[in-house]
């Protein structure tokens, strides 16, 4: 309501309203990513490297709505006076630069797409993990960094504050009820954990956002257009070591000679 009022009065000449002029240099969508929060996520990565001692951290942009064009996205850190371009590669990965001025100005991280059209994730990768697999310790740290950085773009106006209250990195990343979603590279049919001789396939309930998303619910999940790539892993289960490998069976097999 107040937004409507502000929009309506914004077009009036300042003298007509009897007020002094205020120059607004930029407006921020409240859903845009906070630079400070993303830096906090990077600091958490440094603090908790024990999960993935040799890993690197990047961030990734992912589609959140149908028909969003994920090619040629540009990204920048934007404060009141500072604007720092952030290179994005062809797979929409990027490394966030540190900038003291942007931190001071509580900058936002802005992409050249509508905010609600994309979601974001941390991507932590230990060198030497076999192609097409992930390492559980990397995923454990991705969850902590992702939650700390405020990357998940779910949207539930009704239950938002409840989920926020239960939504700390500790709550989400260390509990069997934690709901941090990961996305595979392609649509998955099965996910299998391998730790030495121990091999277990994850239950159906850990794929496809639990398998319970109805068409009415999907728009609130940032898995909306990635449902067939979505999986949970037992981040909380210490019986699976950090070096556990997460292996994917895809719905459609890769052609012979192509890395899965």
């Amino acid at each position, binding site marked *: 309501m107040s937004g409507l009022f502000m929009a309506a009065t914004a077009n009036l000449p300042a003298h007509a309203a009897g007020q002094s002029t205020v120059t607004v240099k930029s407006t921020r969508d409240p859903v845009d990513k906070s630079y400070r929060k993303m830096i906090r996520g990077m600091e958490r990565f440094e603090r908790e490297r024990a999960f993935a001692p040799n890993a690197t951290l990047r961030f990734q942009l992912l589609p959140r709505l149908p028909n969003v064009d994920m090619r040629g996205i540009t990204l920048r850190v934007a404060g009141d006076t500072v604007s720092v371009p952030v290179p994005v590669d062809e797979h929409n990965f990027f490394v966030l630069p540190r900038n003291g001025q942007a931190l001071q100005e509580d900058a936002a991280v802005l992409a050249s797409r509508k905010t609600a059209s994309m979601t974001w994730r941390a991507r932590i990768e230990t060198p030497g993990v076999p192609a097409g697999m992930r390492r559980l310790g990397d995923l454990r740290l991705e969850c902590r960094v992702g939650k700390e950085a405020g990357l998940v773009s779910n949207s539930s106006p009704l239950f938002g504050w409840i989920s926020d209250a239960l939504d700390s990195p500790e709550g989400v990343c260390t509990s069997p009820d934690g709901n941090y979603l990961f996305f595979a590279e392609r649509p998955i049919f099965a996910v299998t954990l391998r730790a030495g001789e121990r091999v277990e*396939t994850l239950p*159906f309930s850990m794929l496809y956002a639990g398998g319970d998303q109805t068409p009415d619910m999907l728009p609130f999940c940032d898995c909306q257009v990635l449902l067939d790539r979505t999986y949970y892993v037992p981040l909380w289960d210490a019986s699976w070591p950090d070096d556990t490998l997460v292996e994917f069976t895809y719905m459609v097999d890769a052609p012979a000679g192509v890395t899965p």
Partner: protein
Amino acid sequence: MKATLILCAALLVGCATQNAAPPGVQVPAERLQQTVLAGQTTKAQLLAAFGPTKNVRFDSGFEAWVYQSPAGDGRFAEFVVLIDPAGIVAKTRTRAPAPAP
């Protein structure tokens, strides 16, 4: 007030997780193995043989259906069927039941 509502939410979650059997129609493993063949069995045949079960339909047109096969001691093996956009079973897999506690 907020604490009360969080407690209510937690109780609701508790109620929602009290089901003993995992979701999906229960069918003996042998029957599934004999009836469901990748590249041959159709969605209509699955429905006729076992009725509707828990499933997820994707924008790509693929569907994943899941059945539960009783394995004794209250445990279940999971049989998952991938149906392609043409309505033909593309893949199947079986997840062994969890070890008895």
